């Protein structure tokens, strides 16, 4: 291959690891990502994994990007192809001039390699077989060894990797030594036998700062701990399971009564999501902060209960880590396809509060906030994550908590209030904001008790099937939803450097790709104002942004333009004004995709207006 073709880039390339599920490669791959970070260079890491436990292909992608773009870029510059099953596909996915690292223990015919790439074979299997007897050790150390090869060809600091290995196996000296040795075996072999360095290189920089590297599900679980959740009811489902796991781990650390050793929390693995939503509703009705982490299929099962919670005005918190459609397979891929399902969940006239965090830092913040919002509004709040946020480590601002912050438990009447003679009507709008007072069961021997039902009640919670009181109640619920508009996080608006007629709306995990796409578009002469929507109901600033722009793109990771539908319905916008930009193949959306789609539309529009002038 002519050398001129080989990609040559410092701190700006994509490495992809191709492994098999269950081979123990995940921790080695993460070690690589963390080592780059410790060299001061931002990374964006993503898992692409199948819906099974062992044997199927998995990939781990690390985008090394000093410029700080954290969205998926698309394309691969270097692949570590450890899975013979996907070898051909992995090679095919390389950019022209890219690099292939593979295990050359078993010879591969020259004709099987692409001609426009650099092939770097390392006999990892052979080295392992010579060094280790135990088959499991051979597998595990082979993983560390290819990190050694990578460190050699990319000229990485070995000190960082040694430190990370020490940290990972802290207290287990034998393991530290063995892993460090395997790493150096791979690295030394590569330095002697491969043409190091290659065109790609990680060079120490100072672009990471004080940021942390955390997955959205852990951040969400931490948010629930800080937000005062005491009851977690869940049913296992990828990609939400790790929220319950992390909540359990953080509670074991922070929520044990030091005197008695007893738990200040309860976690129930339920029989299904009907039960998990039911338990959350029961606990919240009774004054505890409770949540259920789940994914789309769980939200489907929770429909009836979500409606009950809406009508009965129960502060239930549900986390939806969105994934692809039903059954197995696509479900371990990412999507934003539950927006309408969640917004209007259940039968009858219902609407729910949704929060759309862009990444782990906001997932933490919104997770804690969701308990305040739910208590304040006495209604379900759904935290809408997705697999891309939930199950990937993301570089983000350190998590913050204001120690002066006081939980907002909403309007709760106490025994003292009742004794003081305050008028208690469970569904009485005393403040004009649509939000009534509630009492917790067991508050007072003679006052303040009420009977909770879906509908069919008057302002004092007395049973009635009359139309008047029903309408009265339904209108109050609408008023409450209006109140919610000012309580939920408003949109984040970023104006282009010059005034623009065009706007773009996006949300959730699309955020990093959109930021990058905006830079690409601006470099191409397309200036767009952008608005990241962070909650439903839409804050009033959303209406203003829609009004201020002639044409608006709505970028989403689903087929049916669900957020667009929600905007059209709730903001009364002319649909022609909103152009959908849709990505829904299960991979995270990329800046290249967004920029190309928008540039094409803007190009068309420009041509049309030229024709009009001519």
């Amino acid at each position: 291959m002519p050398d001129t073709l080989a990609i040559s880039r410092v701190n700006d390339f994509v490495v992809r690891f191709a492994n098999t599920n269950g081979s123990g490669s995940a921790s080695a791959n993460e070690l690589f990502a963390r080592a780059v970070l410790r060299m001061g260079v931002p990374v964006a890491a993503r898992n692409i994994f199948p819906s099974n436990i062992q044997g199927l292909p998995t990939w781990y992608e690390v985008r090394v990007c000093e410029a700080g773009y954290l969205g998926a870029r698309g394309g691969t510059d270097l692949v570590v192809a450890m899975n013979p099953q996907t070898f051909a596909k992995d090679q095919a996915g390389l950019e022209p001039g890219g690099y292939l690292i593979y295990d050359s223990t078993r010879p591969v015919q020259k004709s099987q390699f692409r001609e426009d790439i650099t092939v770097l074979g390392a006999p990892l299997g052979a080295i392992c077989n010579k060094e280790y007897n135990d088959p499991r050790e051979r597998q595990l150390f082979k993983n560390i060894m290819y990190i050694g090869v990578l460190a050699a060809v990319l000229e990485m600091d070995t000190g960082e990797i040694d430190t990370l290995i020490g940290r990972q196996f802290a207290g287990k000296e034998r393991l530290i030594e063995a892993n460090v040795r395997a790493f150096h075996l791979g690295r030394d072999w590569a330095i002697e036998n491969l043409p190091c360095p290659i065109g790609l290189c990680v060079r120490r920089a100072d672009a990471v700062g004080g940021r942390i590297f955390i997955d959205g599900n852990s951040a969400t679980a931490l948010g629930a701990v800080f937000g005062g959740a005491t009851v977690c009811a869940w049913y296992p489902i990828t990609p939400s399971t790790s929220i319950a796991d992390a909540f359990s781990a953080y509670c074991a650390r922070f929520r044990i009564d030091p005197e008695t050793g007893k738990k200040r929390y309860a976690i129930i693995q339920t029989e299904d999501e009907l039960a998990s939503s039911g338990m959350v509703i029961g606990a919240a009705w009774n004054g505890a902060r409770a949540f259920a982490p789940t994914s789309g299929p769980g939200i489907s099962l929770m429909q009836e209960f979500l409606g009950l919670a809406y009508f009965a005005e129960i502060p239930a918190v549900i986390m939806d880590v969105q994934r692809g459609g039903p059954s197995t397979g696509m479900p371990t891929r990412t999507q934003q396809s539950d927006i309408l399902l969640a917004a209007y969940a259940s039968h009858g006239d219902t609407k729910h509060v949704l929060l759309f965090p862009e990444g782990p830092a906001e997932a933490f913040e919104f997770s804690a906030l969701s308990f305040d919002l739910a208590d304040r509004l006495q209604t379900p709040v759904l935290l809408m994550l997705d697999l891309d946020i939930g199950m990937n480590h993301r570089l983000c601002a350190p998590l913050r908590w204001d120690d002066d912050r006081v939980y907002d438990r909403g309007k709760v009447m106490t025994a003292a209030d009742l004794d003081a003679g305050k008028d208690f009507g469970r569904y009485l709008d005393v403040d004009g904001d649509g939000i009534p007072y509630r009492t917790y069961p067991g508050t007072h021997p003679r006052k303040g008790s009420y009977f909770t039902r879906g509908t069919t009640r008057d302002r004092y919670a007395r049973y009635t099937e009359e139309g008047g009181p029903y309408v009265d109640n339904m209108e109050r619920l609408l008023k409450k939803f209006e109140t919610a508009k000012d309580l939920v996080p408003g949109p984040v608006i970023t104006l282009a450097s010059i005034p623009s007629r065009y706007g773009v709306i996006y949300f959730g995990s699309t955020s990093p790709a959109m930021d990058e796409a905006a830079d690409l578009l601006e470099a191409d002469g397309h200036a767009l104002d952008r608005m990241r929507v962070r909650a439903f109901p839409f804050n009033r600033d959303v209406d203003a942004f829609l009004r201020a722009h002639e044409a608006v793109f709505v970028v989403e990771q689903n087929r049916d333009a669900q957020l667009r539908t929600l905007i059209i319905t709730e903001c009364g916008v002319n649909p022609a004004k909103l152009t959908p930009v849709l990505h829904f193949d299960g991979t995270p959306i990329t800046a290249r995709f967004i920029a190309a789609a928008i540039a094409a539309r803007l190009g068309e529009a420009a041509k049309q207006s030229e024709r009009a002038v001519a």
Partner: protein
Amino acid sequence: MSYLAKPKFHHPALPENTLGYTRRDYEGAISTLCAGCGHDSITAAIVEACFELSIAPHRVAKISGIGCSSKTPTYFLGNSHGFNSVHGRMPSVLTGASLANRDLIYLGVSGDGDSASIGLGQFAHALRRGVNMVYIVENNGVYGLTKGQFSATADDGSKSKQGVVNIDKPIDLTALALQLGASYVARSFSGDKAQLVSLIKGAIEHEGAALVDVISPCVAFNNHVGSTKSYDYVREHNIAVNRLDVIVGRTPITVDYEPGKLELVQQHDGSWLRLRKLNAEYSVHDRRAAIDFLLEHEAKSEIVTGLLYVASDKDELHADLNTTDTPLNALSQKELCPGMARLEEINASLG
């Protein structure tokens, strides 16, 4: 129809319990069920049981599903919080409520459609978790509220009002509860108030999952000849294995019964169950024998009632989970929120 408040008129001569409450204090709104409905007798038994045990009404939470049976919590304990949830899902709502506050008494009210048909899953899982509750099934073999279709407890061969014969096998909720590990299992009949009141009292005093399956005839749809859940049929086929008295807070006096026929069982809260054995062979401590006994008598079309089983080991969800004695809903922000210093440590470990 709308809400009918019962006139709160206290007759000075009404007897009071040790807390100073009269029976009136345990009543609710006037029932809107059909006159003669078995469910109303269960309502009356709950009122009586709570009065006799001197339970502070506001310390009870009543939770139900959907059905005529599930409407009844409106008709008793008017000073307690109640929750009419969704069809078949009372157990999960009750479990969540119990997790939030372990100090209240949880009274779950359900029907046979609610528990054995649509809600069989939740029925099973709440019992196997050992939720501390009184779970009452008002069992009439039909869906009363939707006008008389067979439920999953209808007996094979039982005839509907229109003459349709049920061909599916019935689910025996007590046998199922025994198998699932419920720690207090009883069956009663809404036509036998004395038995019912004492079984409910025993269930309230019991710590753990207590099931009381009450055969409760539906006069509108399942009280005819050919039904196996009619008043007449149940009276004719009822065999009670024991009579129960619940005595709270003192050792019971045991003089007035034939020796050998009386058994005393102490519950974990210190209360005593005084059992007068009607069947000398029957033991309330043997789960397996109880299931055998039920199956054997079911085969003879007999309906076994009484206290069927009470566990000697304590088995209760909060104990299993090792939650704090302070109810979770009463923990302060200080106890719940780790604070910024801890978060800094976490941030540092994630750099």
